[in-house]
């Protein structure tokens, strides 16, 4: 039943995301926006996924600020935490349902992109001679692009969730999360400008899975280690939030 409450809390964001995808779908069918004659479609797929992931980050910020920390801030903590459930279950149910909804939205966006490609290059009974890279339909690459987008959304969501927990306030959690991301981007920009030799040691906010251009595109070296490291960082946020919640006095 707590899942039902979580769904009630975040469904507004989900429906906004669905509405956005419907608009995207209509645009994709009406206007063939992908013109990939000169670059690898893999890059287009990745770019498309990251742009949509970035848009989903807006929803992730909103969803992350609705966690149990926000409920405590609103004075609902005493009620919620006197339900006979372990505190960590409240937290992980919220985290999982929001992540599932955000993932669904991102997967749907990628599906729309792939549908657009298919319509553009293979649709209507003929096959274009300008098909630059059919490997865009390779499941591995689709998944990698999706994972990169999802890692960004999950990072933003988890960070916001964590800050909402430690500040016990939706608005403060949101401000801290946006502030942290902005500060990181600013720091990265400054390092690129003034200490470029250090730049390669500071990971980008967005994971880039491929290197090279056009037909020479290959997977980035150490990609899977990077994915694992980022997953670890992302999971540290709810784990830290759990640590805080289990010791929180309400």
């Amino acid at each position, binding site marked *: *039943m*707590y899942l*039902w*409450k979580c769904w*009630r*809390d975040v469904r507004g964001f989900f429906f906004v995301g669905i509405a956005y995808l419907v608009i995207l779908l209509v645009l994709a069918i009406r206007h063939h926006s992908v013109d990939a004659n000169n670059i690898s479609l893999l890059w287009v797929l990745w770019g498309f996924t990251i742009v949509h992931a970035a848009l989903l980050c807006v929803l992730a910020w909103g969803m992350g600020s609705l966690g149990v920390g926000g*409920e405590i801030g*609103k*004075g*609902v*903590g*005493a*009620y*919620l*935490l*006197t*339900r*006979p*459930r*372990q505190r960590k279950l409240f937290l992980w149910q919220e985290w999982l349902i929001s992540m599932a909804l955000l993932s669904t939205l991102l997967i749907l966006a990628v599906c729309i992109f792939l549908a657009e490609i298919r319509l553009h290059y293979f649709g209507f009974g003929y096959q274009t001679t300008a098909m630059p890279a059919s490997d865009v339909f390779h499941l591995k690459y689709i998944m990698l692009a999706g994972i990169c987008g999802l890692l960004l959304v999950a990072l933003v969501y988890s960070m916001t969730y964590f800050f909402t927990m430690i500040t016990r306030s939706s608005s403060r959690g949101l401000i801290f999360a946006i502030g942290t991301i902005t500060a990181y981007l600013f720091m990265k920009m400054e390092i690129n400008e003034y200490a470029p030799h250090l730049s390669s040691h500071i990971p980008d906010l967005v994971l880039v899975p491929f290197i090279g251009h056009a037909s020479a595109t290959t997977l980035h070296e150490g990609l899977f280690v990077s994915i694992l490291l980022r997953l670890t960082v992302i999971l540290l946020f709810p784990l830290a939030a759990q640590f805080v919640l289990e010791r929180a*006095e*309400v």
Partner: protein
Amino acid sequence: MTDLAIQTQGLAKSYGPLGAVDGLNLHVPRGSIYGFLGRNGAGKTTTIRMFAGLARRTGGSIQVFGLDPQYDHIAILERTGFVIDKMLIPSMTGNDLVRFNRAFFPKWSDVLAKKYAEALEIPMKQKFSKLSSGNKTKLCLLLALAQGADLLVLDEPTAGLDPVVTDQLLRLIVDDFANDGRTAFLSSHHLSEVERVADWVGIIDHGKLLLEAQLDDIRIGYRRIRAIGRELPTQSPEILKLHRSEGMTEYVLRANADAFTARLRNEGATVLDVSPMNLSEIFLELVGKESHVPVEVLA
């Protein structure tokens, strides 16, 4: 199995240098209605939060049904209805909250929920945030009662309510809950309400328990004696408090008033009067107010 629903031994809670609860020894018998009295800031809510596992004690021990809230809070919460902040999920209606709550409690009763909603005239289709203060409290109580709890812990249940709603709630607690042999623990500073429903009382001030007794024992045993005389006794186990002014000595006794009066007379004192005391008077004596201001005003 212990005969106590709640027991604390030397319970302490401090926030830095500030001691909120200081060596509290409570004994709440099963099947009783226990009134937990104290002024604002006396430590009542902190104590209740420790029962619910919402706050961690810094000393002593707590047992609720023989279980420690710090380690067995799930088992305690399954059997206990807590109404602490009277704040539920604002976006949910009463019906949503019933639906939400139902899944947490195996002994939940929809029949009871419906009965209380009708009896208390709660607009169940209205969002919690839109309800009046009285209806919010009533809804909190409904949820606690319908969960089939063996113990009800209510923090200031009647605060801010009008007399009609207060009466409704108190009757509900006594008639529908406690009459089934279940235990109700309610904190309050409205002494007349507690005096009306409780059979046990505990008075707390500055985090310390000043008195714990059955209300009947208080009514029977507690007496105020005023006497005139020289070198009157100042030490005796039954003396709760003693005031001296202009040759007159006023005793507040917790028991054995007849024997103590006889002893005073034997020692040459003139006993002016022996009068029974109500809960308000005892409360004022214990929390150290010299003038007998009506307690409801203090609240």
